[in-house]
């Protein structure tokens, strides 16, 4: 069976307002599977080192996977790739909604955007017709306002949008891109890349049909996955409560970031959990991404009072960032904060991270509240948290400092404020207390994005479900390694999760299926690939394709900044958990070194620097395939 699979890419130059079509062929599918893997290769080859993330030469790359448009469960994902203005490094971000399916039904695999438009612009992709439109009247509006107006101008009701809000327009360093109104391609400030290009929105619709090689076998495999979903407690929880169901567990278990990671449990924290939110009618069923049975996305409503409003979400990370990380346990201001972040296009994790940092800085006397609109910056003030979101999105007053992210903001504020800037390599840490979860600690340190969960998500280290325990047994021979506090087995676990996550992003499906619930495994993916594309790939070859992408991403970062370290925020490496069931735990330098050493050894990297060697790059086939890769070899 031939493995020649073609990718059709729309190249848009916003400076020249031109559009060209390129079709790749050859081995890109076999080597990278497409999607995120293709995006990594396009980023590496298409721009040299030292590109200004907010300048014309930074590519903004949208890649769907070959499963997009088919009913492979969860096949609604798009990966957006660019150099990040927050980290200055490789960045990928994923989102769902309906955009990826629409692009595939329009018969495109990817869109690459370069240049900078002179004036605000939005793009429409209507099957093969690609057009540039004046975005005046959309620029300066929220995501919801913009999509509503753009739909009115374009006509028809079946457009899917990828849009930025005020935050992206104002180049907030953690601005995000929103698809289908409420689905965020978050982290890393890719919304600012889009805003710097003066690109407000990309509207897509496709009238085509999707044909697969073997629809009968595909249906059988879909049924097999659905049967697993019906057995999976996690899948059921995602449907009923979304990711908010994790809040109760994290709070009870002492792994929930509270007050800027200065403690890990908070009384009343359950009010931000899925159970409370659903019971009190704050949260109900929302929009699933295309082809996803689990439909984790919820819809939140505050019916009256000063926080009245409604929006998609909230996710666990949002509840833990805007909520507990700022000491807030009242759901209403947190839901308002979620709504504002969606409308402004702001990453909720970094937003909560930088607000928590400001609160702590004020409490430690480094900044007075008259520099902050007189706001009370004590822990738990939900109104202050909400007010600051407006200021950040609009870069007003103190918001202008906060919009730079905690790394830059703490440099500017000075003193010891860098110590409680809970960030590494320019990215605020996702809301997992890695001091009590060692596989997460390792995965955060080696993640090319920064200390963040959407790269590996090694939940199996907790061993809370039979699926998780089975995976650990498969990898390590025993489920005794399912203990988040030990180091053994964690590098192996992280490596598997990284590879599988890359495969997932590259095929255009959701990590909740292949990790988290573990209802889609390597053998299922091989069957799907054959049924969709009539391509035969072994499980090993599929995971190898994921590995290739992980290594290539690491290479981009090494080319960009050879001094970049695999590390965690200072607080987690230097301040032990102060109280609660995990008192005293720490991500010490020694522990991290043990984990990193084993991780580097597993990958065949140089044991001291963690660099991929010539042997590794050659044996993966990267050296032969990726132009310019040679230069990163020492």
């Amino acid at each position, binding site marked *: 069976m031939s493995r020649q699979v073609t990718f059709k890419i729309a190249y848009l130059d916003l400076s020249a307002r031109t559009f060209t079509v390129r079709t790749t062929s050859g081995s890109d599918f076999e080597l990278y599977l497409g999607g995120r893997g293709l995006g990594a290769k396009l980023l590496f080859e298409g721009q040299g080192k030292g590109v200004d993330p907010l300048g014309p030469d930074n590519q903004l790359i949208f890649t769907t996977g070959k499963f997009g448009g088919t009913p492979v469960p969860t096949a609604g994902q798009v990966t957006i790739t660019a150099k990040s203005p927050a980290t200055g490094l490789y960045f990928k971000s994923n989102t769902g909604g309906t955009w990826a399916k629409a692009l595939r039904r329009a018969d495109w695999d990817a869109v690459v955007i370069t240049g900078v438009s002179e004036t605000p612009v939005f793009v429409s992709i209507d099957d093969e017709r690609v057009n540039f439109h004046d975005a005046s009247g959309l620029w300066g509006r929220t995501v919801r306002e913009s999509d509503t107006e753009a739909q009115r101008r374009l006509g028809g009701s079946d457009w899917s949008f990828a849009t930025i809000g005020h935050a992206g327009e104002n180049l907030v360093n953690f601005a995000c891109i929103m698809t289908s109104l409420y689905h965020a391609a978050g982290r890393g400030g890719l919304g600012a890349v889009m805003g710097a290009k003066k690109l407000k929105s990309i509207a897509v619709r496709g009238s085509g049909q999707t044909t697969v090689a073997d629809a009968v076998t595909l249906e059988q495999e879909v049924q097999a996955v659905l049967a697993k979903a019906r057995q999976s*407690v*996690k899948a*059921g*929880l*995602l449907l*009923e*409560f979304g*990711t908010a*169901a*994790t809040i*109760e*567990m994290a709070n*009870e*278990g*002492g792994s929930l970031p509270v007050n800027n990671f200065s403690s890990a*449990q908070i009384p009343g924290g*359950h009010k931000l*959990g*899925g*159970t*409370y939110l659903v*019971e009190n009618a704050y949260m109900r069923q929302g929009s699933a991404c295309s082809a996803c049975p689990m439909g*984790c996305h919820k819809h939140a409503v505050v019916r009256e009072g000063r926080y009245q409003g409604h929006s998609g979400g909230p*996710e*666990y*990370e949002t509840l833990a960032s805007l909520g507990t990380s700022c000491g807030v346990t009242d759901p209403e201001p947190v839901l308002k904060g979620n709504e504002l972040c969606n409308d402004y296009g702001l990453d909720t994790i970094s937003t909560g991270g930088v607000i928590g940092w400001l609160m702590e800085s004020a409490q430690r006397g480094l900044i007075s509240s008259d520099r902050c609109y007189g706001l009370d910056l004590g822990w738990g003030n939900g109104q202050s948290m909400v007010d600051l979101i407006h200021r950040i999105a609009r870069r007003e007053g103190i918001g202008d400092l906060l919009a730079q992210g905690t790394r830059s903001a703490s440099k500017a504020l000075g003193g010891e404020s860098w110590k409680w800037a809970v960030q590494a390599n320019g990215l605020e840490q*996702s*809301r*997992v207390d890695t001091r009590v979860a060692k596989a997460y600690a390792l995965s955060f340190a080696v993640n090319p994005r920064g200390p963040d*969960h*959407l790269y590996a*998500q090694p*939940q199996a280290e907790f061993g*809370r*479900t039979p699926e998780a325990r089975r995976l650990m047994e498969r990898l390590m021979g025993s489920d005794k390694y399912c203990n988040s506090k030990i180091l053994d087995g964690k590098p192996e676990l992280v490596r598997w999760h990284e590879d599988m996550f890359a495969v997932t992003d590259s095929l255009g499906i959701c990590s*909740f299926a292949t990790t*988290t*619930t573990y209802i889609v495994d390597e053998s299922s993916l091989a069957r799907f690939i054959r049924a969709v594309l009539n391509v035969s790939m072994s499980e090993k070859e599929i995971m190898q394709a994921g590995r290739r992408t992980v290594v290539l991403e690491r290479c981009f970062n090494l080319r960009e900044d050879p001094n970049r370290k695999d590390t965690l925020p200072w607080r987690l490496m230097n301040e032990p958990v102060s109280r*609660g*069931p*995990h008192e005293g735990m720490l991500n010490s330098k020694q522990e991290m070194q043990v984990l990193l050493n084993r991780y580097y050894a597993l990958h065949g990297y140089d044991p001291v620097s963690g660099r991929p060697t010539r042997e590794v790059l050659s044996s993966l086939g990267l050296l032969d395939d990726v132009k310019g890769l040679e230069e990163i070899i020492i």
Partner: protein
Amino acid sequence: MPVHIEIRVYHGIKKYLPAGDGNGFCRTFSLPDGASVAQAISALNIPNDEKVFTLLNGVMCSPDRALNSGDVLSIMQPAGGG
């Protein structure tokens, strides 16, 4: 002497709690001396085939661990994701 523990239930487990006071999340429960975690769970009428995830004072424990007065038993379903 009976042991008095605090029980917190979440997710689909809530439905097994007897109807009663408004705050359904957290209540004190009395059990006979020497009662185990497993016995507490069945005393709440949670069926054997319900896949629960429990924490005792914030940490995972074995079901036959004996309870002491003042213990906090959290019973929920295994959630995940961000």
